[in-house]
């Protein structure tokens, strides 16, 4: 199915559209469940009223001040991780290519820990995480650059950087005083608890800018998946597209980590789940973002309710998801 407006055309696959709509509905359902349940149950009509600003005061307080920021942050962070994962899996042509493994998330953690140790506020920690992620990405890109960046070299250099940064992180944690170490440790597991609107806003802005950018480069990236030479022959500026894509992916994982801490494995699992759901030949940006949003909010809901009243950090749940995903990948690809 193709839509044309003048010289512009967009190709749409019906199955992808239906899957996208279904994911959207699912995301809404999970969000409503997260808004409604908890220690104090808010009936669904009250939620709608509270969102519109006309609900009972208790519902407005609980939904508007406590639960909604957390749910919205979860949706946005999940979408950002999903999108970033889609970019790196396409670039590395590997279902395991994920910002979690090639140092970017670890770099963000380093920045975050340094900010914690320096005694920073929540905003400083977020800034530190973003800076750490970007600095790591620039270094990895520069080290992997030899007349162009090959996907595999980016992965290997990134894995080296990841190992180095994980060691630096544990060094910083052992040097820090016990209070800082506990704060940093809690942030490092990845958690959505206590997130306010000021956490959600930067991610929303980043998505608003970067989502169109990703949509723009997604076609040429599909070509690059077929090989640099083939893409060049079709008139694609391979290095330029790759640089833009890497920049977008790094910024997305940076702001997402800044907001929620290094929640690993969402970026790994979301694009492949989305690919299977849409039955598309490669990774798809929009569906990956939606899947990431659903995955993270569902994982956060489960983390809150599974062992209630004990609250698990969402990172523990996503690690379990990551493990399950790897085993599924193992089974699927064997046949």
């Amino acid at each position, binding site marked *: 199915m193709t839509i044309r407006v003048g010289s512009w055309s967009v190709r749409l696959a019906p199955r992808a559209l239906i899957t996208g709509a279904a994911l959207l509905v699912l995301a809404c359902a999970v969000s409503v469940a997260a808004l409604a349940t908890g220690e104090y149950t808010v009936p669904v009509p009250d939620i709608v009223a509270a969102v519109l600003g006309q609900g009972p005061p208790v519902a407005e307080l609980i939904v508007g001040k406590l639960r909604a920021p957390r749910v919205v942050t979860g949706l946005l962070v999940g979408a950002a991780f999903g999108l970033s994962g889609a970019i790196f899996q396409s670039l590395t042509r590997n279902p395991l290519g994920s910002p979690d493994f090639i140092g970017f998330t670890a770099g963000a953690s380093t920045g975050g820990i340094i900010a914690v140790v320096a005694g920073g506020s929540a905003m400083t920690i977020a800034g530190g995480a973003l800076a750490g992620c970007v600095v790591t990405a620039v270094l990895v890109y520069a080290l992997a650059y030899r007349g162009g960046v090959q996907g*595999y070299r980016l992965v290997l250099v990134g894995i080296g950087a990841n190992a180095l940064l994980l060691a630096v992180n544990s060094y910083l944690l052992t040097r820090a005083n016990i209070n800082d170490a506990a704060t940093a440790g809690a942030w490092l597991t990845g958690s959505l608890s206590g997130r306010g609107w000021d956490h959600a806003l930067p991610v929303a802005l980043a998505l608003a800018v970067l989502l169109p950018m990703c949509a723009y480069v997604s076609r040429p990236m599909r070509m690059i998946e077929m090989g640099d030479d083939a893409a060049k022959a079709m008139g694609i500026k391979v290095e330029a597209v790759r640089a833009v894509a890497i920049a977008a992916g790094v910024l997305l994982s940076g702001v997402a980590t800044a907001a929620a801490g290094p929640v690993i494995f969402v970026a790994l699992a979301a694009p492949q789940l989305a690919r299977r759901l849409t039955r598309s030949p490669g990774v798809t940006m929009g569906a990956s973002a939606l899947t990431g949003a659903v995955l993270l909010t569902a994982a956060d809901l489960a983390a809150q309710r599974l062992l209630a009243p004990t609250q698990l950090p969402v990172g523990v749940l996503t690690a379990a998801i990551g493990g399950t995903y790897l085993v599924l990948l193992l089974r699927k690809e064997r046949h």
Partner: protein
Amino acid sequence: MRPAEETAVPVAGTGEEAGAARDPGRRGRPAVLATGLVVGMAVLALVAMASVALGARGVSFGTVIDAFLAPDGSNDHTVIRELRVPRTLLGIGVGATLGLAGALMQSLTRNPLADPGLLGVNEGAALGVTLALGLFGLSDPAVYVWFAFGGAALTSVAVYALASSGRSGSSPVRLTLAGVAFGMVCTAIASAILRMDAQTFDRMRFWLTGSLAGQTADTLVRLAPFMAAGLVLGLMLARPLNTLALGDDAGKALGVGVNRTRILTGVAVTLLCGAATAAAGPLWFVGLIVPHAVRAVVGPDQRWVLPYSALAAPVLLLAADVAGRLIARPGEVQVGIVWAVIGAPIFIMLARRRRVAAL
């Protein structure tokens, strides 16, 4: 890519090279290499002395010797006999096992980037140990080492299967990514388990980054038989691995049981990595860099690569441990961190330089 780089195949090497030791023109080589092993042992003894003498509290070599010949129960003598000596011996054991394990893995997978830590085997073993200590409350090293073996065996099989699935088959990059992915899942689950119990977390925090500190002589005694078994089995595999380097078919034609060699190597790697991780936590890069350096000196013949790796790794591991003790006096930096800081740049260099197979 320049031709010079294409010929620089880093792994086990070709058959001609493997036979070079028997080449008439290089008849003197085995004698030289054997002498090298003896020199290596002398260096190891020196580093071990340094490891016993140096630390947060420096001790003179004279006092070290007195501590063995005429222990007088003084503070220095107690530190040496009860802390430094077990730690040094543990370092030698862990270094030898990881060095040999790395060499075996690189030879078996024909992958220049294989390393027990990088491929997730050590993390799998660490998860096993964490389960045993954190959930089941087992505290005897000779018991929980079996959990380490289980974790190591499961992850190596899973990583290898994941990397060789799909149409393109196993490549160094696929194998490394699969290993890192599995390793991170194992580490995430292990730290989640540890976080549930503050006491265990505090005790195992340093172990989880890789550290030789805090283990008693008892741990060493309980783990030594497993390390020794792994070392003996691993060293015995040199000849069949040399033949397998020619390719599976050539190996079969020359009378080597291909599957038998693979399984035995897997068993050896599991024993070595499991015991090393139970002792010192998941260490990265020891098994990657040492065999690389060794091959550059002795060539691709596994009969020399394996023993040299097992000898050179403890030298470097102890040196790193001593460095970690000296740079942060009166505290110390865990040896796992020191190794990562040294090892990661070397890994990046290898990844940049070598023409490892594309994805």
